[in-house]
């Protein structure tokens, strides 16, 4: 126990050390996170009136980001499956980086849900009267926290073993790895059911939402991992093989194709049927009664995603910089598609046919940026600790002063 505390203490100390790039990067993230915290306390004082949300559009940027990040967290499984089921070698040493990303993403998810609450001070009520299994939101609370615990256990165990230069005992983590694989699918499915279970919102009330969530997550998540791994490779001495990136590229290509196919199916059903239920889709894609705030968003998302898919399907994307471009386009494209393209339009028009558009306020955006910065800060610290441990620079018997300085600007 004492030994574990010493390990944590050394990790904490390590996270405060680096060269000037590391400091600058950490300072910027801390500054943004603090600005976000500042914006959130303003929201606490004044209420959610500081956001652009209304009774008509009652969920906005917070829930959009939450949905996207659940996908990112679930996507870590796309590193785990090749390694633990198909015994892939290239990805073997990278799995833990993906799982740490999942941990950071889940923490961001929980923060996004918390800032969306009108009465965060009553959070305890979730423990006292938990409407399980009726409310999908309780399912979501369970699976998200469960996934967080699972991943913390797996990562923590593996890192701690490496710290002690011990071979990890399979029984302590392999069952959890397989559990986490199933669990990852669950978290995003439950998040999709959160929306698709609502009969009063025809735009969401579609069975294709859950598959679409999974497909888009498995495209955007690995895309983020592709970029992250290259940054880690650039910033630390951690070996990342190109073959690993190319395997992820194939995964991303397949997932993005499926996502585009499902999106197409959705669009066909909405527009060919042309029933009264397709008004939200009409608002999203072409505008309704002279209101078209979301039209540029969704078309840029479609443009970015189609462009990325086109590039990925050609041999062009074997070049890393082109692959990176495609990944960046896809990350943004799917963020828009899931946020502005899926959460917001379901509220417009309102169930009574009233059109009130949604524009996030500066304060709301600042809170979101703050949470993103905090998540990146966490992930940077995770990587900062993990890389020297895995490389054997930081072990139980090494002196902390031996650790080489590392640049980390992920």
């Amino acid at each position, binding site marked *: 126990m004492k030994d574990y505390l010493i390990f944590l203490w050394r990790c904490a100390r390590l996270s405060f050390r680096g*060269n*000037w*790039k590391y*400091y*600058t990067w950490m*300072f910027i993230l801390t*500054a943004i996170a*603090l*600005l976000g915290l*500042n914006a959130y306390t*303003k929201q606490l*004082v*004044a209420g959610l*009136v*500081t956001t*652009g949300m*209304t*009774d*008509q559009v009652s969920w906005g940027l917070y829930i959009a980001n939450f949905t996207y990040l659940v996908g990112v967290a679930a996507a870590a499984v796309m590193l785990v499956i090749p390694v633990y089921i198909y015994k892939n070698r290239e990805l073997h040493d990278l799995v833990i980086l993906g799982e740490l990303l999942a941990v950071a993403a889940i923490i961001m998810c929980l923060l996004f849900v918390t800032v969306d609450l009108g009465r965060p001070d009553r959070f305890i009520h979730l423990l006292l009267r938990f409407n399980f299994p009726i409310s999908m939101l309780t399912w979501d609370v369970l699976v998200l926290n469960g996934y967080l615990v699972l991943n913390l256990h797996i990562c923590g165990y593996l890192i701690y073993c490496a710290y002690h230069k011990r071979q990890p005992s399979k029984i302590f983590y392999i069952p959890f790895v397989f559990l986490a694989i199933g669990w990852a699918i669950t978290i995003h499915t439950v998040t999709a059911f959160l929306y698709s279970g609502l009969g009063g919102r025809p735009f969401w009330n579609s069975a294709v939402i859950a598959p679409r969530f999974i497909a888009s997550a498995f495209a955007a998540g690995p895309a983020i991992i592709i970029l992250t791994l290259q940054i880690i490779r650039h910033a630390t001495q951690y070996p990342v093989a190109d073959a690993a990136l190319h395997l992820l590229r194939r995964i991303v290509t397949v997932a993005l194709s499926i996502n585009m196919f499902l999106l197409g199916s959705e669009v066909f059903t909405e527009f060919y049927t042309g029933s009264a239920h397709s008004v939200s889709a*009409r608002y999203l894609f*072409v*505008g*309704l*009664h*002279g*209101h078209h705030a979301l039209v540029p968003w969704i078309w840029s998302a479609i443009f970015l995603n189609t462009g990325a898919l086109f590039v990925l399907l050609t041999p062009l994307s074997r070049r890393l910089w082109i692959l990176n471009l495609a990944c960046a386009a896809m990350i943004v494209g799917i963020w828009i598609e899931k946020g502005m393209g899926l959460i917001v339009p379901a509220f417009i028009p309102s169930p009574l046919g009233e*059109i*009130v558009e*949604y524009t996030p306020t500066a304060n709301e955006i600042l809170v979101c940026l703050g949470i993103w910065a905090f998540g990146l800060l966490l992930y940077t610290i995770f990587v900062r600790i993990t890389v020297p441990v895995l490389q054997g620079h930081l072990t139980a018997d090494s002196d902390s002063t031996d650790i080489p300085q590392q640049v980390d600007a992920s």
Partner: protein
Amino acid sequence: MGVGSASQSFSATWGAPLGGLLIGPAFLALAAVMWFGSLEIITPGAPTPLFDKSALTPGGLRPRMDEPPTSLIGGYNQRCNDCHQVFTSRFDPSRPPSQHTHIHFDHGINDSCTNCHARKNRERLILRDGVEIPFNEVATLCQQCHGPVYRDWKRGTHGKTMGSWQMGSPAQRRLVCTECHDPHAPTYAPMVPLPGPNTLHMGERAEVVHQKPERNPLRRWTTPARDADPHPINEEHN
């Protein structure tokens, strides 16, 4: 390697100051910005415009009539027969009345006073078969022509009930015809509506009104231009 050495010299020159010297003051500057930053609480949406609260008085549109009916004349509540025992009056629907001129008469084919008012006793109403009834039983009079409405009123599906929803409760009272309808002009007069909604971020009220073009579902049957599209969006994109 060139990049490496460049970054090395850069970090040697600037790394140390950036690493420590600037972070403290930078944080302090950030702190100052947040400390002195104002807390703006905007409520996007105007409060409800003021209106006459008397519009919210519960009950019918018209006062309940006394039995027998009275009216305020010369500062006193006078009964009908106070005058009508003295003065004779004519009942000629073709000529405008010389008295009771405030009465606006618009009751369709029912255009004669004596259709309803008893000629002999002005404090009574008269049925078609000559039976005289008091004013508070006016529904019996009206039902002679308005059968279906009377049936609905008896059932409680027409008209207004006040006091209680519990059937048979002493507090419950079903308003009679003349507590809502003016018997001389039973159709409701147009009313000024109370202010419309103005919730958060709804924007200017006028904007909402004008930006949602009215769709006329009857256009196919009323206008010759059948091809006129109800949705301007489609027009833009066609």
